[in-house]
């Protein structure tokens, strides 16, 4: 595996290996010397055609912890505004010596196109493409679930028997897509809860269950409730009538948290709209994994960088 484009491409075995390596990366991050020489002399180019400070910083921290050099390209003031094509931009970055291109783009499929057409030799990591996928987010979410629910040293374990509810704007969420594909591969039971307007059509092949409201989904006492960021402009385009109706039916709040077992966790990929998809007190509760997700994100991305570097296929 040279590139990481979609969680669809990951077998359970490969995904577990990535999670296992991340355990060692977490360990490294707890030491006095938080740096490994593994990618010394390699260059990671963070290429972000869509702004995302947190994802970019996470990849940057991961690359630096593995001793890679990091170059960052964002669209502000770049040649893209001068009409240079994506292909030319990436080839320029590669000519400057990028071994990895961490690519974020607002259009679905961009990472696939770059990898499939072999526009560059560099290893491509999809850091979010439109409303398609965000595979490293799903991996860090799976890692967070496994650590919290199975214990820190869960080496070799999958997620069989773990029930996950993903709630909110599934249709436009690359996080939901990548998670649905990865979590089912790892044996988890996945339920989607959303209004019909925010559900993709014909998803029988996803191996997930669909219910209407969050209350319906909570009846089965899930181990994990994954909330998603709601883009407020969806309201004006008629996907739901109002913020208050959305949070009433699909928002994770205190009373819903109380209905869950105390061992269940609540996740959010960030950045949160407190009071909309997740209430402030739920986000700050001990059952919230929001901070874990951020911290695990660096370890998970170290694992991905390390694993892709050694794989020449």
């Amino acid at each position, binding site marked *: 595996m040279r590139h990481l484009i979609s969680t*669809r491409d990951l077998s359970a075995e490969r995904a577990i290996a990535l999670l296992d390596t991340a355990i060692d990366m977490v360990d490294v991050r707890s030491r006095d010397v938080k740096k490994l020489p593994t990618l010394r002399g390699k260059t990671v180019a963070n290429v972000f055609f869509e702004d995302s400070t947190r994802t970019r910083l996470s990849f940057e921290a991961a690359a630096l912890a593995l001793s890679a050099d990091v170059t960052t390209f964002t669209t502000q003031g770049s040649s893209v505004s001068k009409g240079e*094509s*994506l*292909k030319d931009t990436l080839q320029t970055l590669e000519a400057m010596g990028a071994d990895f291109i961490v690519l974020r*783009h607002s*259009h*679905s*499929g*961009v990472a*696939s*196109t770059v990898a*499939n*057409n072999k526009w560059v030799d560099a290893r491509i990591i999809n850091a979010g*493409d*439109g*409303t*398609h*996928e965000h595979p490293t987010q799903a991996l860090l979410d799976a890692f967070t679930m496994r650590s919290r629910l199975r214990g820190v040293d869960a080496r070799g374990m999958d997620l069989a028997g773990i029930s996950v509810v993903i709630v909110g704007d599934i249709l436009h969420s*690359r996080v939901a*897509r990548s998670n649905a594909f990865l979590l089912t591969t790892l044996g988890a039971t996945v339920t989607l809860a959303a209004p019909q307007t925010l559900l*993709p*059509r*014909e*998803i*029988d*092949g996803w191996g997930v269950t669909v219910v209407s409201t969050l209350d319906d989904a909570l009846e089965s006492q899930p181990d994990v409730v994954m909330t998603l960021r709601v883009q407020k402009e969806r309201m004006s385009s008629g996907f739901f009538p109002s913020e208050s109706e959305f949070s009433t039916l699909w928002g994770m709040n205190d009373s819903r948290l109380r209905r869950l077992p105390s061992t269940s966790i609540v996740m959010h990929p960030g950045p949160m709209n407190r009071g909309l998809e997740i209430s402030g007190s739920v986000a700050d509760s001990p059952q919230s994994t929001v901070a874990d997700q951020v911290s695990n994100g660096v370890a998970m991305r170290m694992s991905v960088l390390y694993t892709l570097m050694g794989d020449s296929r």
Partner: protein
Amino acid sequence: MTILIRGAAILGKDSADILIDGHTIREIGSVNNDADRVIDANGLIALPGLVDLHSHLREPGGEGSETILSGSRAAAAGGFTTVHAMANTNPVADTAELVDLVADRGRQAGYVQVRPIGAVTRGLAGEQLADIGGMARSAAAVTVFSDDGKCVGDSLLMRRALEYVSTFGGVIAQHAQDPRLTIDAVVNEGGVSSELGLRGWPSVAEESIIARDVLLAEYVGARLHVCHVSTAGSVDVIRWAKKRGISVTAEVTPHHLVLTDDRALAYDPIFKVNPPLRTSEDVEELRRAVADGTIDIVATDHAPHASSTKDCTWHDASFGMVGLESALSVVQHTLVDSGHIDWPDVARILSVTPARIGRVGGYATPLAVGSPANLTLVDPTTSESWSTNRLHGGSTNSPFLGITLPGKVVSTIFLGTETVSDGALVAPEIVRNT
């Protein structure tokens, strides 16, 4: 100049000789005359010259992807002798001057008859009717009007257009796509769009416009032609309308008869087209609809694009595929070899009926003595992997590259002039001088 074609299977049936004298088919049967040129057509099928009701020749304004000359050559290579050139050029073909210019350049190229299609609304803007009367009464005598690429979405404007065009005996060729239901839509809405995270183009956006338009056509008593029907639901609506006696005709593209939306799974923009590739159930129903006559014709929607607009991301890529060269092969593969229709039906759906819809003279009785000498000879027995050496237009955005298709056009004769000879295009200067 006389041409004698020896031993062709007429419309795929009995073998006979065909004698062409000047612009006219002089004799069919067992011909003993000598001729200036003799073509051995043993094993070949003789079809009437094909008529395409839906091509984008891009001139003026898009010469980087196609010109009237290069598009005419692609058409001849595919067995066509008449093509209709869509109006979405730059400037738009919405005046008599512009449609005359297109027809003239077609005549100068000399490979096929180029029939301009006029815009329904000025600048394809969907606001004000174009100079429909002027175009109808121009030298080009436009009979087909279309805003293709855009739908005449406004119901009142569509009503007026149907009424106004019928004044001149013309027809509206509607690109059926509800604009509001398809904002930023780039792929069929369904399992594939869901997996890819691409904005879906729902089948109902096509079907609801067709339903509205057939009712409008019935109400005002006008003719309606539906471009590139792509869904099983659209077939149902058209079947219902025809049963009701509404004057509607419909076309399907070759690519919608064979390719499905799962081709988009690798985000290869060569498969980005509008309307989008649909599901295998739609493909099956479209084939049946051609066989039972619900869909009247196959039209290519030949849409050339320069490689830079296809060697890019799915989002940035242009919609469209070239199709003139491959149309007959796809029809043979999807309809004839599969047993849906016979070769005489091929003549009907690719020549007689499109000519009738477009009011093009000379195609009513295929391969009849006294008719204009427009015909094509096809070798149906060959089969090969499609490659760019089969393409002769200005662009190579064919979705069939690397796919094996049957059949090959060996000869095309346009008004008594060979445009394709022994499987090769005849040079422009030779075509022009004869």
